[in-house]
Structures are given as C-alpha cells and as structure tokens.
C-alpha cells in the first residue's frame, strides 16, 4: 500500500504536512547539518522585514515550565540580504515559505515586492502576530478589520500562496481568521506565541530585557489545539497548526483537530531531528490505523464527534 502524505496549501503541493515554524529554523542552514532538508514538507524561514533589524537586547530568552519565552524582536538581515540566504535553499527542491513582518502595510508590501523576484520563494506567511516588537506585528493581528485591510492590500501584490499567521492573544481568533479569509488569504497558520513574562525573584526584575516575551513549547499545546479546532471549523481555507508540537502524536492531534499541515517550533531546540522524526511517526500512525492519505485525518476528530452528536 502506498501512503499519500501530500497536502495542498493554496497553490503549494507539499510532499508531507510537516514544516519547521518560523523563527525556529533560521534560514534553514543550521539544521542542514543534522539531516537532508529536502525531507521536509516546506521550509519556513525566519521573520523578514524590509530593513535589517538588530532585534531586542539580551536577555532574549528564558525557560518556563514545559516551554520558553522568547523576545528576539525579529532580528533579521532585511529582505535584500535574506534573499541570498533563501537562494541557498534552492537545491533542496522544497517549497520555501518566507515569514513576512513589518510595522506598516507599506513595509509588508516592500518585503513581498523584493521576494516576488525570487523563484525559490513559494509562499508568504504574513506575520500579524509577533508580540515582541513595539509597533506593528501583533497590532495587525488583534483586530479583524485591521488584519483584513492588511491582507487585502497584500493580495494583489502576488499570485504566490498567501498564508496569514494568527495571534492567539485575542478574544476571538475565529473572527480574525474569517476576516483574513474573506480578504484573500489562501491559508491561515496558528498559533504564534502567547504573550507572557518571567520575573527573576532574586534580582527583582523581569528576566527579559523586553520585559515580556512570547510563550511557546508544549505548555501552549492545549490552547493551540483548541484554536485550530475552532478556526478550522469556521473557515474553508487550509489551516497550518502549531504550538507545542514535540512528537508525532502531538502532530497527529493537530491534524485530527482540523489542521492540513503542522509546523514545529521550539521543539527543534530540544531535539534538532524532531521534524524528520515527526514525519516518520505520522506515516507510522497512518499505516497502523489503515489510512491511505494523511488528508483523511484532517479534521477527523471533529467530523466523528459531529456524527456522534447527531446520532444521539
């Protein structure tokens, strides 16, 4: 029996549903030392802005129970220099998704304009949810109207796949998801980090220089899974699920909840070979349960639940 792991996200056909999460995989080269990146469904590179950004001062990270806070602050070399790094990913023949960030609609547009020239770039993940920069970022992601306006402005600028990355720091993530769907997004990805904080009790000060940071890792998985469940029920575009995935079982639970693909962030730091291990584990799960395509399990927990409820 051949197993079909392919999934479609907008125009992209991914050979499997597993990709690293933005900001956790640099521009790919670091993890190329551990395995052949061409095994990945896609390569998602770090948040990229129009101009180079130095990022926040240290300390930028702190471990928390079952996770970590980061306040990198979108350090990146700017889109022009990023292009060079991205080109180096071309030999892997794997779709490259560039995470795009900015403070204004114009900045987002500018990044896309430059990346449009790059053949290696297959899709954009529009980051409207970075909690670690002052202006912009999360500001776009917390209000459905603002999010929709941004997406509507970007949509005409490209025919490449447009993924919008949602913030979990909202009362109603479904409203934001629907708004960006209507505005032309091909897919949504969620969740970005939860806004959090740590305090050093001996020094009596926030641990992070930025005071607050973004929480990720296994600790946030239940929140992420709930949001994927809610959003995938409400939109007709594919959902890329992430937040706390650290093994195949976690990944499968996101697919069952309604995700078409998954991204793995902080777990790469703990286990640099987590992505290929998750791919293998998903295969294993499908075989063990007699599925022929990974697409069969997207949303299966919900459809089966609905069946049960109707049967009652």
């Amino acid at each position, binding site marked *: 029996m051949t197993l079909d792991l392919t999934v479609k996200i907008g125009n992209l056909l991914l050979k499997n549903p597993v990709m690293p999460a933005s*900001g*956790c*995989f*640099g521009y790919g080269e*670091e*993890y190329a*030392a*551990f395995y052949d990146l061409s095994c990945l469904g896609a390569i998602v590179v*770090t948040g990229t802005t129009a101009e180079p950004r*130095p*990022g926040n*001062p*240290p*300390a*930028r*990270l*702190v*471990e*928390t*129970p*079952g*996770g*970590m806070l*980061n306040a*990198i602050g979108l*350090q990146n070399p700017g889109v022009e220099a990023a292009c060079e790094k991205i080109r180096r990913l071309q030999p892997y023949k794997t779709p490259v998704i560039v995470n795009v960030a900015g403070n204004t609609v114009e900045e987002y547009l500018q990044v896309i304009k430059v990346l449009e020239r790059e053949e290696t770039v297959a899709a954009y993940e529009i980051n409207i949810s970075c909690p670690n920069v002052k202006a912009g970022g999360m500001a776009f992601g917390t209000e459905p109207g603002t999010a929709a306006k941004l997406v509507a402005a970007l949509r005409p600028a490209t025919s490449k796949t447009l993924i919008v990355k949602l913030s979990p720091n909202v009362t109603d993530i479904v409203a934001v998801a629907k708004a960006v769907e209507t505005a032309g997004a091909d897919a949504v990805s969620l969740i970005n980090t939860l806004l959090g904080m740590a305090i050093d009790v001996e020094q009596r000060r926030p641990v992070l220089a930025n005071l607050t940071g973004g929480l990720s*890792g*296994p*600790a946030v998985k239940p929140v992420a899974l709930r949001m994927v469940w809610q959003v995938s029920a409400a939109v007709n575009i594919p959902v890329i699920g992430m937040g706390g995935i*650290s093994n195949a079982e976690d990944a499968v639970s996101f697919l069952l909840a309604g995700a078409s693909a998954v991204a793995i962030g*902080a777990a*790469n*730091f*703990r*286990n*640099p*070979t987590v992505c290929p291990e998750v791919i293998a584990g998903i295969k294993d799960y499908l075989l063990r349960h007699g599925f022929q395509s990974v697409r069969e399990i997207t949303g299966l927990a919900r459809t089966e639940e609905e069946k049960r409820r109707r049967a009652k």
Partner: protein
Amino acid sequence: MQKKKMEILEHEQLADDIFRLKLAGDIGARPGQFVQVGVASTLEPFLNRPFSVHNCTESSLTLLYRVVGRGTRLLAQRPKGAILSVVGPLGNGFPRTKKRQAVLVAGGIGVAPLYYLLHTLRAEGKDVSFLYGTKTAAEIVLENEFRSLVQEFHLTTEDGSAGKQGFVTELLPQVLAEKQADIFACGPSAMLRAVAKIATQMDLTCFVSLEAEMACGVGACLGCVVTGADGNYRRVCTDGPVFAAGEVFSFDS
C-alpha cells in the same frame, strides 16, 4: 554536528556541587567547543543545557559541571548506565595560535573547557601557565593533575582557604610580564572582563569563552546573543562561545 544517545560510563562528585560525567562515544570536539545535553526525558525542564567539552577521546566525552539549578540538579541524579541525549560538537572552540607560551585563566567552573585545552596545548609541546581561582577551597577540582601538567600553576581563593587570597586576575599581570604568551580564559563575566582589560593594556592576544542562556545551540533561534564591542549582537553558540577579547569587551582608554 549530530544528535547522539550516549550512555553514562562514570558519574562522580569531585567537589562541592561539582560533578564529572563521562559518556560513551566519540563526539569529535575541539577544545572550547560545547555540547547541549538533555538533562531529563520529561518535557520540564524543556531546554537542553550547554556544557563545555571537558575532555574528548575517540571513545568518550567528559563534562565537568556545577549544580546551580533545576537542570543540573536533575543531571546529577542520573545514574551510571542512563542514556543522555547529546547534541554537538557546537561552537567555534579556542583558535590555534602561534606563540609557544600560553596562559590559561580559569574562574570557578570555567576550569571545565580549559582542562581539555591544556591537554591539547601540552600535546603540541607548548609551555602553559595555569591560573585557577575559586571562591573557596571546597570548589577546587583536579589541582594535582593541573600542577603535574603545567610549567607554572597559581591558585587563588576569594576567602583564602587555599592558595593565595584574592582574585585570580590579581596575579595575572606579573605572570604575563615574564613571557610572550597568548591568553585563554573562561569564568564569570566579571573575571573575563578583568582579564580582557589586562590583556588590552599589555597588548596581548586574549580569547574568552562566554556563557549565555541558550535554546537551540546551533545559531537558529538568535536567543543567546551578547552585545559586541561594536554594538552589534553576536550569537554565543555559533559566533562563539570563544571570542577575541576585543570583540566583546571595550574599555574607554
């Protein structure tokens, strides 16, 4: 650079809170490089912990660590025979330099990587002076081995319970005065700064090995940066952990 499951061959306490951990397998590291160790199989603590390579052969990797918090406390409980997940070798390591003389300055647990460097330098036939400072006598490890290997050995403790009382850096100018040496230092940040300052004043080449909280250890997360002398950030894990003193310390002079 690889991820390896490595078995604990030996695990012994050498001094107050200081343990030596010997793992089976070859990680192929140079002096000054480090590894990331999964201290427990549970998801908390979540991140690996970075430790310098204390020694490395074709069949084993040795770490020397101090128990300072949750992760190292858990590590200290892992028995012989347990399997640890180890990622490495990571970082740049100490550069090879040309001078025939080397001065190594260790502060506290900073002694860990300098042990490996010392062995390597001696194998290359270099003259080594070793300055070793701790807070108190109870933290001193491997003193006899150091004494037997080096041309010159100085010990200081802050409380005077062993060696000369004071900071290890107080001895440095006079040790350097007599020779043409490169300096290699590892220890607390304040000590490294003091060493770097002396080196700058005496116009000597000096390498310092830094620490920072790390997540990935491979340069991907940008979490471990320190501010360089030029104001730009540098990743301790891949741009370092060893830096030319002038790259990370600046002195208004």
